[in-house]
């Protein structure tokens, strides 16, 4: 079967039309939206993309990482550092970034999985690694230490070097988000994907039916870390500045987890729906904050949103929404 046929196998025509329409809308969106609208949509796609990456580990393989900022931070810093010091553009630097994040993911994964740290203990390990990388970067001159790393803001469009305005970054993150969606769908409909689900449900039973548990978990963490590092590279060149304090922040790691949790863990649309809900409402609350001069409304909203979801829709918004819209995707 061709790749396209495999991708669409078993998907109802209605869903395919819906997806196609969504893609067309996203492609022409910049023409329809103003500057502000575009910046919000960029954030939605960013969180959908990293959410998709994080979901591979937690939603598919059942491994809770609360330190994904590590991979985004390492990826972003390396690509930005190479560009800043040697003029090596991100089109090349991205490979180094992905490699470094994959190595970081392998180290965290191996330590955790080889010594059978599960659940909260594994999550603590991921936090620890993210934290001491932050401290190391605080004292590392090459990346500017705690003073930060700044890229020259340059409005001339230079696509391979990721220099340009919001429009360029919009299309790059859109391509990443679409790519991640396709990759996740392919993975989920493969032996590896089914093995992940089995591990998530019961690692001992999975191993008894021949699933090489350690290897599958390692593949999950490496794919997830590599994908997350791409988001880090994109983020570094979009914002043009990097500080260890924010790049490796615990809060950033948590932010990555919100879209899939709210949208629906282990589903393909969960991270996307979650990103729309979170960013959309988050923006409204940011505006309200400014209007009433009360800071932190967005954070309070994030907290409340999580609380409501965990209490009333523990499977997430998407499975509930899908059922109402008549689409079939369940949490697997």
């Amino acid at each position, binding site marked *: 079967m061709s790749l396209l046929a495999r991708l669409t196998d078993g998907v109802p025509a209605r869903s395919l039309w819906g997806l196609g329409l969504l893609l067309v809308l996203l492609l022409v969106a910049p023409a329809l939206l103003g500057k502000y609208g575009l910046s919000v949509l960029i954030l939605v796609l960013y969180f959908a993309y990293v959410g998709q990456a994080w979901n591979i580990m937690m939603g598919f393989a059942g491994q809770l990482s609360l330190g994904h900022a590590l991979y985004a931070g390492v990826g972003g810093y390396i690509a930005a550092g190479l560009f800043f010091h040697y003029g090596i553009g991100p089109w090349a630097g991205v490979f180094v970034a992905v490699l470094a994040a994959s190595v970081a993911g392998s180290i965290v994964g191996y330590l955790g999985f080889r010594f059978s740290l599960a659940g909260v203990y594994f999550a603590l390990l991921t936090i620890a690694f993210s934290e001491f990388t932050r401290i190391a970067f605080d004292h590392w001159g090459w990346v500017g230490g705690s003073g930060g790393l700044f890229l020259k803001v340059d409005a001339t469009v230079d696509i391979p070097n990721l220099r340009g305005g919001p429009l360029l970054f919009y299309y790059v993150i859109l391509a990443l988000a679409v790519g991640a969606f396709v990759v996740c769908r392919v993975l989920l409909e493969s*032996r590896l994907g089914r*093995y992940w*689900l089995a591990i998530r*449900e019961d690692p001992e*039973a999975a*191993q*008894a*039916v021949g699933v*090489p548990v350690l290897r599958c978990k390692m593949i999950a963490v490496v794919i997830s870390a590599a994908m997350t590092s791409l988001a880090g590279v994109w983020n570094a060149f979009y914002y043009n500045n990097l500080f260890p304090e924010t790049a490796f922040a615990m809060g950033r790691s948590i932010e990555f987890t919100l879209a899939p949790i709210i949208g629906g863990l282990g589903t393909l649309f969960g991270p996307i729906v979650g990103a729309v809900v979170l960013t959309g409402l988050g923006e409204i609350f940011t505006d309200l904050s400014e209007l009433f001069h009360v800071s932190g409304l967005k954070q309070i909203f994030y907290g409340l949103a999580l609380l409501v979801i965990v209490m009333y829709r523990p499977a997430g918004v998407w499975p509930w929404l899908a059922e109402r819209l008549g689409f079939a995707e369940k949490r697997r």
Partner: protein
Amino acid sequence: MSGARLELDGIGKSFRGLRAVHNVSFDVPAGAINALIGPNGAGKTTIFNVIAGVYRPDAGSVRLDGRPISGLRPDRVCDAGVGRTFQIVKPFKGLSVLENVTVGALHRRPALADARAYAADILMQLGLHDRRNQAAESLTLPDRKRLEVARALATEPKLLLLDEVMAGLRPTEIDVMVTFLQELNRRTGLTILLIEHVMRAVMALAAHIVVVSYGEKIAEGTPAEIARHQAVLDVYLGEPEPA
């Protein structure tokens, strides 16, 4: 699919100094159905876990068709041809019944569509096909036991280890399971070793019985011999009612 010969040779396993299994040896010939019985805490499940690779034995060796498998990881033991069920059932709860068995079938059939078709076939044989789209967590205990067997069979084992799959089943359901296992064994020559407390099933199925107590083998023989064996009567079966 055909059966493999299992040989246990002087197996020993202790947990922090507590001796769970000591110097247990027995064989299961290729294509046989044998039973492992004994009182609770005798070490039956520990023996299973040693065979299945969950525990590495402190002493002795396990061989499948003459090939040593002790010390291999559970997934490698599965590769070698051992399928097992869990006494406390371990379904993949959030997955459908069909997907549960598909995971097992993927072991030897890497293509998802193939694995799914094979899994559906096994569900048909075990009478679970009507429930294939239900989530495994919604099954009743007897159905979960059947699901355990289906998932283990999907890996196409040469030796099937069944850990109390009859427990909790009604007598008629026990008979159905017994018939299914006999038929499966006759058709495929699959070797079966079962741990079972339900004597009705043991007596109907097993050609040969191994009895363990306090981690040691105290007897082995045909069902008729075991039913008369004084040591077995003392520690496990109890004296027959006076006539």
